């Protein structure tokens, strides 16, 4: 019986975690720097058991074993096998298994990759991580068990929701989890470092690569989520400042700040307590995000179905984490001595952290403020894109300039080379911006500033590349990441100011014309597929000599009875054409939304390049050590 086997493995994992904690504690009391073999073995077995448990669940989905509630609620025998497999983690209970896998695997890997660090530090990290693991295993067993049995066994499952059958959505959770669940390991390491007073630079090198990996995957996960939203949700946007999106962004801000601060800590042994705070903050924000998304406390496009006991459990876990960390910090905090020069690289890292914390506070505030107004004054408010855009965009302008200048500051020293060169770059940026105005159209003052500073960052990075190639001290990873961030802002800005959007109600045969565009509703077809019927519209978009046919669909699924709207997207390097069609009740008019969105593909490419920079740095570090 799959159910019993799965439960057994879960229970065994708890026993293993407890044994690891017990043995590690015993080992701590011994002298010498040797960790007994059994601890390694138990950790390996623990990871293996959890992986087997996860595969057991996948197997249950593949064979459509509806005796498990989770399989019944989230799968269907007619689902394509790829989606049966990926559906395993597309639901609350299954995704918790993914949580535990990452917690345990990271725990084991951290143990074996840190041989050059003090035993006390390594064992304490292991102990704290296992406390987290036990917390989640208990959550699974007591509240959200994917192996919960169902009797009598239903003949068919409920889970055929077509919106969830998508490749991007399938890979999105694993990517994100390696990101923010992975941050658990440096949370545990930070606590271990505090307790064992391991505060030298070597602590930095033990967690540095873990921060890089989790950051890269977090970025990638956010990207894939946005791409999915763009292709699947049909409104043509990719970021809505929706609470679930924000939940993934908050740890990202902390990780970015952390990654920069750890460079300073490693180089100059400064900001130890700030690094610790960031390590703790990242995982705390991850769990907070999980709480916000799964407890049902917020209303969002993405929420899983909610259950109040879930929320209480996660909230209790979160509270323990927060108060535990806070009290430990209070106990161990010592003021540090700083010798800082204003124009040093250390300062610019602080500036990065400063801005990251600003973004973090803004997004956190915007996300949880409605909870406060609702709980305290019964008044429901919305905090949406207008708020975030108004607060964040002006600040991004200055941030980009700092991103350009910062990396070129020297460690410790106070001088600043090449101010003249920066002025030249600034003028270049302004000129390019002027050309953009002439070529496209007028746009707001703020957009002008954003584009200029994005160009400034890009051109500075180019300048850095040329100069450092000559001097042979090329930091390719940093240049790629910073430049790509500049490109990201540039393309988002250009996309925003030159997007075209038109909304029409049209009948078959009608042509709508505006500016130098024409949209003709040529045909409507009814097509039959295995599990759905599609109403396919054929539209011809004519822009001067450029002719494109787009075919948006209205899909009628029978099981479950859902209606989805599939956008027709024509991608090219210059722009995307985006067309959605929806029926109007009790009428033979259809509502057509046409959008022309320039540079969409460059937006995705920019983020991919950012990730590449991070991975490049990771591989370089791994090679060096």
């Amino acid at each position, binding site marked *: 019986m799959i159910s019993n086997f799965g439960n057994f493995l879960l229970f065994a994992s708890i026993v293993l975690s407890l044994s690891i904690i017990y043995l590690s504690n015993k080992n701590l009391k011994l002298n010498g720097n040797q960790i007994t073999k059994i601890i390694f073995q138990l950790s390996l077995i623990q990871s293996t058991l959890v992986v087997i448990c996860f595969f057991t669940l996948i197997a249950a989905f593949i064979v459509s074993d509806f005796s498990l509630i989770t399989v019944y609620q989230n799968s269907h025998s007619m689902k394509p096998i790829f989606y049966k497999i990926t559906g395993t983690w597309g639901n609350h209970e299954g995704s918790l298994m993914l949580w535990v896998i990452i917690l345990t695997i990271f725990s084991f890997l951290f143990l074996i990759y840190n041989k050059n660090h003090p035993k006390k530090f390594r064992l304490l990290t292991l102990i704290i991580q296992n406390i987290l693991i036990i917390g989640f295993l208990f959550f699974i067993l007591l509240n959200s068990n994917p192996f919960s049995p169902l009797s009598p066994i239903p003949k068919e499952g409920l889970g055929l929701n077509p919106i969830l059958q998508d490749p991007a959505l399938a890979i999105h959770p694993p990517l994100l989890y390696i990101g923010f669940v992975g941050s658990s390991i440096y949370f545990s390491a930070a606590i271990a470092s505090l307790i064992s007073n391991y505060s030298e630079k070597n602590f930095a090198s033990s967690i540095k690569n873990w921060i890089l990996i989790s950051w890269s995957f977090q970025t990638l996960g956010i990207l894939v989520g946005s791409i999915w939203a763009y292709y699947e949700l049909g409104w043509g946007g990719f970021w809505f400042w929706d609470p679930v999106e924000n939940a993934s962004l908050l740890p990202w801000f902390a990780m970015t700040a952390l990654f920069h601060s750890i460079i300073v800590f490693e180089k100059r042994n400064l900001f130890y307590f700030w690094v610790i705070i960031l390590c703790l903050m990242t995982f705390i924000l991850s769990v907070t995000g999980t709480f916000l998304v799964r407890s049902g406390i917020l209303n969002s496009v993405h929420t899983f179905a909610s259950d109040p006991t879930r929320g209480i459990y996660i909230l209790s876990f*979160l509270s323990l984490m927060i108060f535990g960390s806070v009290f430990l910090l209070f106990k161990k905090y010592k003021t540090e001595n700083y010798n800082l020069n204003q124009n040093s690289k250390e300062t610019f890292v602080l500036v990065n952290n400063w801005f990251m914390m600003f973004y973090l506070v803004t997004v956190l505030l915007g996300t949880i403020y409605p909870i406060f107004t609702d709980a*305290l004054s019964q008044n429901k408010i919305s905090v949406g894109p207008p708020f975030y855009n108004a607060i964040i965009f002006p600040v991004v302008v200055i941030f980009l300039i700092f991103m350009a200048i910062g990396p070129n500051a020297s460690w410790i020293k106070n001088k600043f080379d090449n101010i003249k060169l920066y002025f030249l770059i600034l003028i270049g940026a302004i000129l390019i911006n002027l050309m953009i105005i002439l070529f496209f159209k007028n746009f707001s003052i703020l957009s002008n500033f954003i584009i200029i500073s994005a160009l400034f960052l890009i051109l500075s990075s180019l300048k850095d590349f040329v100069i450092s190639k000559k001097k042979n001290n090329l930091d390719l990873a940093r240049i790629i990441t910073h430049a790509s961030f500049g490109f990201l802002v540039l393309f988002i800005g250009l996309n925003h100011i030159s997007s075209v959007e038109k909304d029409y109600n049209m009948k078959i045969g009608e042509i709508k014309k505006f500016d130098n565009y024409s949209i003709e509703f040529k045909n409507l077809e009814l097509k039959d597929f295995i599990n759905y019927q599609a109403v396919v519209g054929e539209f011809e978009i004519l822009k001067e000599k450029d002719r494109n046919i787009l075919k948006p669909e209205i899909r009628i699924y029978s099981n479950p009875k859902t209606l989805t709207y599939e956008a027709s997207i024509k991608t090219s390097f210059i722009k995307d054409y985006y067309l959605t069609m929806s029926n109007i009740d009790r009428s033979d008019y259809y509502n057509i939304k046409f959008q022309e969105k320039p540079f969409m593909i460059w937006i995705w490419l920019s983020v991919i390049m950012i990730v590449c920079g991070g991975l490049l740095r990771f591989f370089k570090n791994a090679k060096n050590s």
Partner: protein
Amino acid sequence: MQKIVKTIIFLIFLFILSVFFIGLNRDTNYNTANQINKEIPDFKVSYIDEENFFTKNDLRKNNFTLINFWASWCAPCRIEHPLLIRLSEEKNMKIVGVNFKDKKEHAKKFLGELGNPYDVSTKDMNGKQSVLFGIYGIPESILVNKELIVIKKFVGPLSVNDLNYIKEIIKQ
């Protein structure tokens, strides 16, 4: 770190977590209670059978009025309809029906089939007048007193509890 800073930090976290806890127990369904205790807006709906208009002032002669927004194509409206029939027997209250985005023939057929509880039958073909009342889905009902102040707004089909509540209120 000074005692004060530590206490403040601790209290901030305690506050945030407490609010989260309170938030967990709140109902996430949205209820547009905004209009309660305010006077109903100036509206103009035409009678279902004629082109004349029915406005706010026509309600002043009633002690209580229940304005019910419905349509023949709305399934929950069928479910609540028997309760409306029962309410139509109340002497102290008149029921005004606003037929929402519907076709006259379908509406008449619906009323013929299930009975007509409405003292006044009006229609809102494009739904724009209903927006003035803060209607966002149907069925919805608004209970109004003689001074045209909104006493309660019922979102969704009326339940038996709602029925009893209304009966209590209109006794006064």
